[in-house]
């Protein structure tokens, strides 16, 4: 049973990590607590839903939904945050704008589409499960694990192995200096928004596929865990988000499995607080505080 529980934890953790990848990128690089992030997750799931209902196969619907979510993210970032960024407003103002926006977006979506839960067309992905050594895993779950690994690898390569990644990291470290060095920060911000939004959209499709429930507030319900993952993993740290996501998933599952399912959240959050008490910048974060 322990092996199956660890696998359960790994799968749950992979969904957390998948959700958090774009979030940590957006947060770490653009330095904005962008609460609209959860909406791109919802948007991706709905776009894939419509595409597959129109007959598109999953391997087309997934990237299309991701790209469209990325475009929505870029557009919203431009609409909501360029003005504040230019005015040099503090991060609390952007937090507030995105909070208002996300309230309006979810409510608008519910008013337009109704609050009902929808599901992707049956047969989109083989329903069977692999069984080996007494462990069971479904195709959707394998897809999530694979996508998670692939996206983490891709992002790490992008950030560490390309000139673009260098520019992004420069901007994350010192936005003003990066601008002086001739990096077009506005265009870079748009690009980071796009990548984050696309990651959120892809996450929405895959997680929607796994839990088979697509509804306007699905992104909202991931936000709290998303916060925990990106903070424990260290803001902007892709690898940290992966590890923190997996850890959170495994801790939740093991608490539910071996202590008490009613305490699963309390235990997970108590551990979060303990991590921050002992490592104030998360497990993999370096403190950004600079003095005099």
């Amino acid at each position, binding site marked *: 049973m322990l092996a199956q529980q660890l696998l359960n934890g790994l799968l749950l953790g992979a969904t957390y990590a998948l959700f958090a990848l774009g979030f940590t990128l957006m947060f770490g690089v653009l330095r904005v607590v962008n609460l609209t992030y959860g909406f791109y997750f919802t948007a991706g799931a709905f776009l894939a839903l419509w595409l597959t209902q129109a007959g598109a196969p999953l391997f087309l619907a997934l990237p299309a939904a991701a790209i469209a979510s990325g475009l929505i993210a870029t557009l919203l970032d431009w609409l909501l945050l360029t003005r504040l960024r230019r005015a040099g407003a503090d991060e*609390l103002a952007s937090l507030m704008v995105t*909070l*208002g926006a996300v309230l309006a977006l979810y*409510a608008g979506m519910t008013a337009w589409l109704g609050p009902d839960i929808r599901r992707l067309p049956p047969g989109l992905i083989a329903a069977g499960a692999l069984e080996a050594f007494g462990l069971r895993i479904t195709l959707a779950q394998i897809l999530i694990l694979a996508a998670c690994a692939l996206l983490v690898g891709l992002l790490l390569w992008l950030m560490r192995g390309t000139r673009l990644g260098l520019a992004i990291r420069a901007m994350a470290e010192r936005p003003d200096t990066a601008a002086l060095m001739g990096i077009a920060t506005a265009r870079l911000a748009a690009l980071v928004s796009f990548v984050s939004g696309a990651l959120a959209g892809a996450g929405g499709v895959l997680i929607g596929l796994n839990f088979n429930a697509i509804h306007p507030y699905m992104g909202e319900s991931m936000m*709290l865990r998303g916060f925990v993952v990106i903070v424990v993993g260290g803001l902007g740290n892709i690898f940290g988000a992966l590890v923190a996501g997996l850890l959170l998933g495994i801790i939740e599952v093991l608490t539910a499995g071996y202590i008490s399912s009613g305490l699963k959240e*309390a235990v997970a*959050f*108590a551990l979060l607080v303990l991590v921050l008490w002992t490592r104030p910048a998360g497990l993999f974060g370096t403190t950004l505080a600079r003095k005099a």
Partner: protein
Amino acid sequence: MAWFDDLLFTYQNLAVALGVNGLLALSMYVVLAVGQLSLGQAAFMGLGAYSSALMSLQLGWPFWAVLPLSCVVPVLFALAVGGPTLRLNGVYLAIATIGLGEVLRGVYLNVDVLGGAMGLSGIPEAAPLWLIYAMLALAVLVLWQVGKSGIGRAMEAMRLDETAALSMGVNIRRYRLATLCASAVLAGLAGALSAHSTDFIGPNDFGFEPAVTILSFALLGGIGSPFAPVLGAWLLTLLPEVLRPLADVRLVMNGAVIVVAVLFLPRGLLAWRMPRHVRPGRAA
């Protein structure tokens, strides 16, 4: 004057909510005023609400005794967790305080005497409206007086530049802990007053979403003076009621109003900053 009674009846809960949310906004304001993004206000409120409800329901104590004690419990909690928590900054502090709130929510859900998911009901409606507003007025007055003193200057200095404030002799850690305790008092008070005017409290009244709502009160209003967060709280409390005729798009408009307000007034609706001293030769 039947119509007046009806008016009171119709808006009684709204009137309570305006007062309580005003106190909550001030509870957020005192920590934001020293530059701390501490989001434990909903948790403090929950502690005040639950402890006061238990004192009323289980021990049968009178409300005048319950009210001050309900502020003590959140303060004790603040003192217990403050040390390690207040070393954190920015979003790390925010998420740690949210985490503590979720731990408390887990306690409410799992401890039988706290009612679990059923919450606590039948709490006596012992908090009169005038008391709520008297408390709010008192809180604004105290924060105004303190704001225009050396303490207010030190708080503002901390918010603007902690290093410089430290070099002026401001004991940052003491101020952080003291403001957290002040925040706990105000939120605990709000919790007790709210519990004793709505009959019922449940664990989900004090989770992540209320925490974000309380933050938005202060951010929308601004933090230049204690009037600003109260204004923000009042606007955000009234807005959904004013927009009621819009039916299913009212929450859309609610969000849109916030976006527009912040885009054009990024420093809050009331951006005016109070002076930090009493002008000589003038009355207080």
